Every structure is written in C-alpha cells, then in structure tokens.
C-alpha cells in the first residue's frame, strides 16, 4: 500500500523541526557569543558534553527536564574555560576553541564508556498545543512537538528582541563592533563577553542534550557527528541574526530528515552518501552566505577574535 503523500510530508517536516532544533540552540548561542567579539570554535565539544551529561542524568534519575537543564549547564560550564582563556588571558581564540572541541570529544569518550549502547526508557514527551495544533498543515508540524521545541521558538523571538530593542543588545553590539568605544562609554567589555560566551555554552549544551534526550536517545562516541561545526557555519549563513538562524537550522534539519527517511525506506543509494547530504548542504549554504555577506556589505562583528585590553601602548 502506498503511503499518503500528504501524511509523509507532514511527518518529514515535523522531523525537520525536531532535527533543526538540535542546531537552532547552538546557532543562537554562537550568534550572541560572536556578536560580543568572541569566536568560540568549541561548540562541538560543548554540545557533546551537554549530550552526555543530559543522557547520563536522564538515565540515572529518569527526570527528563532536569536532565535537559543539567546538559545545558554542563555546556555553559565548559564555555567558561574558553571565556577564561580568551577574555581574561587574552589567548588565541581559535586555538582555545579547537582545544575545547577536542577536549569535549575526549572527555565524553572516557566518561561515556559505561553508557555505550544503553538506551533511555523515555524521551522528552510530546505536548500537543490545543488550538494551534489544529491549524491545517502547519499545526501538526509546528505544534505537535515538545516543550524544548516551543522553547526554541520563543528563544528566537526573545533573542531578536534583546539584540535590537534593549540596552543589553546595544551594549552587546557595541562591544563586538568597537570594544574600545564601548569601554569608553562605560560598558564593561569583559562582563559582556563573559556573559554571552556563557550563554553560548548554555545553548550548545541545550542542543546536545536535546539530541540525546529526544532525537537519538542512546549514547555513542561522537554522537554529535560534527553538528557543532555545522552550527558555526550556519552562524555566518544567519548573518548574526536569530530569525535567519531558524532558516539555516531547519534547512539542515530538512535534508537530515529526508535522508533518514530515504534510508529507512530502503533505497539503493549508499547510506554513507545519504548521510553526507546535510554536510554537503552546509557547504553550499556557506558559499551562498559568503556571497550574500559580501554583496550586502554585512560585516562580521569587527572585533571577532580580537582580545581586548585597555592599557595597550
């Protein structure tokens, strides 16, 4: 019997949102970190730490939301290593970020050994929103999800609002564009940078935890599979603006969901080739984004990657 095309589309798109949410959290986090002038290449590491801590907590306590929170917090704590090196010690942010990624993979490999091949009994439960989920087509895609997905919707709106409508947003943008000017105007550059780097870590941890608590409720080494790197690329695609992050994350999610669906339906295309597709898409997106950024003269935050010191002579 041929499945109904409409039903399949709905399933695919709902999976797209789920899969995209894993990335949406870290992208938004990194947008804010980079807006403050700190480049954190440690997302992959923070995500996988969040993934393991989230998984382990859920496995041991059975408290799924508590596990999500712990995963998020673990990512945040990991980001403080990077913050300390790049803000306080004014070290090289690229090296520090790469080290954090390698550290994350290594440490989860070690502590994750006892969880390998274990599975969670329960994943994050679905919460159907009455009313909204009745909207034809969009309802079942967007509003038959879980609290974490709804949280990500709200996050996009709130972060956009913070960025462009509030005092904190102006301080953040000023620090990332001209730290010296911000400092002269009495903004505490270090504080702003620590805060948003920590926020970036929390979000990366959240993305990781969402992965192991919902999409892939088991533990494997390197389970994040490079999603952290994809997130960094998609920050450029999003042009440091939260609403565009949504598009980037869902595009990646769509291809991911599609290739998954194809694999499960049993096509003749080799699975490795299919699994590659989301990453290939990332490449294309980054080319498009770079061209767009160039054509529209939308700059990278000018202070990105540059340590700030006041008394430099």
């Amino acid at each position, binding site marked *: 019997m041929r499945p109904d095309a409409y039903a399949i589309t709905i399933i695919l798109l709902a999976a797209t949102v789920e899969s995209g949410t894993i990335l949406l959290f870290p992208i938004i986090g990194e947008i804010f970190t980079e807006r403050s002038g700190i480049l954190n290449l440690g997302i992959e590491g923070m995500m996988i730490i969040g993934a393991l801590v989230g998984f382990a907590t859920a496995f041991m306590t059975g408290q799924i939301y508590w596990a999500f929170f712990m995963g998020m917090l673990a990512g945040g704590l990991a980001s403080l290593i990077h913050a300390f090196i790049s803000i306080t010690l004014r070290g090289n942010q690229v090296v520090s970020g790469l080290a954090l990624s390698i550290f994350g993979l290594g440490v989860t490999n070690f502590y994750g050994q006892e969880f390998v091949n274990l599975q969670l009994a329960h994943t994050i439960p679905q919460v159907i929103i009455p009313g909204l989920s009745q909207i034809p087509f969009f309802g079942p895609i967007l509003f038959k999800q879980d609290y974490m997905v709804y949280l990500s919707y709200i996050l996009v709106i709130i972060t956009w609002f913070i960025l462009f409508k*509030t*005092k904190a947003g*102006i301080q953040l*943008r*000023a620090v990332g*564009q001209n730290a010296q*000017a*911000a400092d002269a*105007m009495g*903004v505490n550059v270090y504080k702003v940078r620590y805060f948003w780097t920590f926020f970036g870590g929390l979000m990366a941890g959240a993305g990781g935890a969402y992965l192991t608590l919902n999409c892939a409720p088991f533990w494997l080494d390197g389970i994040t599979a490079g999603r952290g790197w994809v997130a960094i690329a998609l920050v450029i695609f999003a042009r440091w603006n939260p609403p565009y992050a949504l598009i980037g994350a869902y595009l990646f999610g769509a291809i991911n969901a599609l290739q998954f669906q194809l694999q499960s339906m049993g096509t003749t295309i080799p699975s490795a080739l299919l699994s590659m597709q989301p990453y290939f898409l990332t490449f294309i997106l980054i080319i498009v984004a770079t061209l767009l950024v160039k054509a529209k003269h939308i700059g990278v935050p000018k202070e990105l990657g540059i340590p700030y010191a006041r008394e430099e002579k």
Partner: protein
Amino acid sequence: MGAIVLQVKNISKHFPGVLANDHINFDLRKGEIHTLLGENGAGKTTLMNILDGIYYPDEGEIYLNGKKVDIRSPFEATKNGIGMIHQHFMLVDTLTVLENVVLGLESQGFYLNKKKIAERIKEISQNYNLNINPYAKIWQLSVGEQQRVEIIKTLFRGAKILIMDEPTAVLTPQEADTLFKILRRMIKEDKSIIFISHKLDEVMKISDRITVLRKGKLVGTVDKKEIKQKELAKMMVGREVLFRLDRNPIRRKGEVLKIEDLETHNDKGIIILRGINFSLPGGEIFGLAGVSGNGQTELAEVIVGLRRAIAGKVYIKGEEVTNLCPKAITKEGTNYIPPDRLKVGLVPNLSTVENAILRRYDREPISRGIFLNYEEAAKYTRELIKQFNIMVPRENAPVKFLSGGNLQKLILAREIREEPALLIAVHPSRGLDVGATEFVRKKLLEERDQGVAILLISEDLEELLMISDRIGVIYEGKIVGMVDIDDANINEIGLMMAGVHKNPLLKGEENVKV
C-alpha cells in the same frame, strides 16, 4: 572668570620605557576654554585619558570642586561630570546616533524608549545648534557630524567638563569655525572645556588660558592675552621654529605623470574616484588637499598599482601603466611613501637592514643568485642611516622599535635612493615631531629641485601651502579645484574641501569635469 572646578596635582604616569607625564599640575575654571598645547608625545592625551579614567596615574591627585576624587574608569568620569571626546571617535558605526548616545547609560531601563530619547537628543541639539538626526547611522554621517554626535553624547550625560582631543585635526577650516561657535556657546552655559591642540593659530583663536607640555613635563600656564604666538611656539618646541621654508624658484620639466578619467572602488566596493584628471611635470610638487575619505589614498594606491582602476588611464613618462603590478610600476621610476608606516611602508618584525633593502634585495650586489649578501645589505643600510641621519640603536633589531620619525626617514631614504622620476607621498609628516617634520619637508623640496615630480597628499593645509607649487582639492572622488601656490587662499581651499565651492580655478591643459 569662575571658580576652579578641576585641579590636577603632581600627576605622573609611566609606560614601559617612557615617562609620559612627569608631575603635572593643571587647573580648570568654570566657563573657560583651557588649551593643553604640546607636540606629539608631549603627554597631553595621556593626561586627559587619566582624567577620563582610561589610565590610572602612578602618582598624584585629582580634585573636583575642591574634593579629592578617584577616577578609575570612563564610567566614573561620566558620573563626575567629565566627558571626553577622543581624537578617534568612540562611536560604533553600525549603530544609530541614538543608540550610540545611550550606550553604557545606566539610567535607561531594559527596554529602550527610543521616542523619549530622540526627543532629548533633539532638545540638546537645538539648544547648541548641533543639528543631528537621532536615527541616522554613524557611518552615514560626515566627520564633522560625527564629532557633534560625540558632543551630544557628553551633554546627554550631563557633562560639565568637556575634554576635546585635537578636535580640529579632521575638520575643514569652516567646520572648525562651526565647532568653535558651539564651544563658545557651551562656555556661556557654564561648561568648562579642555581643548587639546598643537596648532598655534587656532589655539590663539579659541583659548582663555593655555598650558604647555613638552616631553611629559609641564612648561607653564599662560593667559592668552599676555602671550604672542611666537613665544608660545618656543615654549612648545623648546627652540625657535621656522614658520617658512626657503624654496628655490620652480623649474618645470617634461610631463611625468598623467591621469585620465580615473575611477576606482574603495575597500567596501563603493566607487570612490569618479573621474580624476591631471598631469604633473617633473620638478613640481603637486599638493592634493581634501578631507580624509574623499579618495586621495585610493588615488595613490591606484597609481602605484596597489588598487585596480575600473576606468581611466595612468601614464608615467608617456607610457601607460594602468593596473600593472606594483613592481612593474616601480620599474618605471615610481616610488611611494605610504600613509601607514608600519602597515604598508615597513615590515614591523624585520630588521632595519632587511627593511632597507626591500627595494633592491633582488638586484646585484645585494642579491647573489638565490642568496642574499648580508654584508652588502648592511653596508647599504649604513649608507642610508648616515645620509638621512636615522637613529638606529641596533640595525638587526626589529624595525618596529624605532620612533615614528626614524621610521619615516628610513622609508624616505629607501624610496629616494631609487632615484625615482615620480614620488607619491601620502601624509609624509603625520604624527612626526617638529624636527622630523622639517626634515621630511626639506627632503621633498630637495627632490623637487632635482627634477622629481612629487604628488603630495596631505590633510595638513599648512604643509601643503608651505611646500607645494600647485594645490588641487579632491572632494567626493573628483578634483574640484586647482590653484597655483601664488594664488592660493586658505579660505577658498577650505570651502572647496567642504564641497561648497565647486568652481575649479583651473590653469593650462587640465580639464576637470565637475
């Protein structure tokens, strides 16, 4: 004159290897404009950065209205009613005027009520004739307007003491006059202003009192009414100063440089040169005046091959060199003194010797096959050092440790020794002290007398008037005027720099399209 509002006692500040401020005393009265005068490196900016809380003094005390204060950050300076306008504006150019004004203000809530803030800005702006649209983005404003945003920023914060660090350096003479009017209006409202400058004529024009610093030390404080410009110059430099340089009558030779309808982009991909035409004979210094950002540095870069022309032609000695590579253009006899000494002119981490041979490392006798002959290189470098009187403590140490004047002399020596037919000099004396400035200008005049064609690009009108034979004015990528030095009038040039006066005063074959 009012009571003393600010007093600085025995302030000292060290930087590695330099004593920037050596026991400085200074006071400021209510409703006065007090100028801080001194050469580059005299310690003026350091002292003001201390008042603004950017630096913390090693020694000394600051009193505000008789009370001792401890200013540890710009934020605390603001709280104490001190506002500083830096030489490089502290503005975030992707943000709007309004956003820049409220940046760092504690009194604002989490959500910004833009309407209310805009009204305050308009109020201040009307009160002092500042005329600024609060919703404009900073990058869309002219330099003069950006400066007014800085003033609004300090007034918005309720500053009573305003520090302005060389505010006229980036302005045309007319814009400077507007600024002076604003400043006079401000002291009438009982504000006090510290004005930092090294330009004597404007200091005489605007100040009530003048404090002179030299090499980090206090020379003295004088009342403007009781001192003459010449005495002031002597206080500042420590010796008599030449206000004029002697120069020989001009002997023009054949045409060396010819530019036709030249157009190019700037780094952002926006058209910055819109059809430049002029020609330059040997033996002449052609000075190009203009407010920065009107295409003058890009023009120099196109001529020497560092930037692609998108239209038009460049001829050197009759041969077309448009868009050739820099090396080929150098071969045609063009040499270049770039605006940024350590970014373009020299390689900071290479030694003096290695920098000195950059034009001839690939020629005999310094090059020998694939090897370098370091003995020859050192010999050549010593020649340059002697001939140009460059102070080099160790010729194998990285060049970045030399002072600005010596760096510039090294570049000048390296370029002039190539015996060019055409020399492009961009801001050759920017940031140099009086002695080095004189040296550079004299060398350029010497080269002119040797028959070299010199294109001098400078924002310093005094310099242009002092050594050019002809002055052109560039505005928004076009040459809007050209005058012979004997007919040059500083007011007229100023108006053309501001784009007001668009009637080109042209002579000879130059055909300027406006």
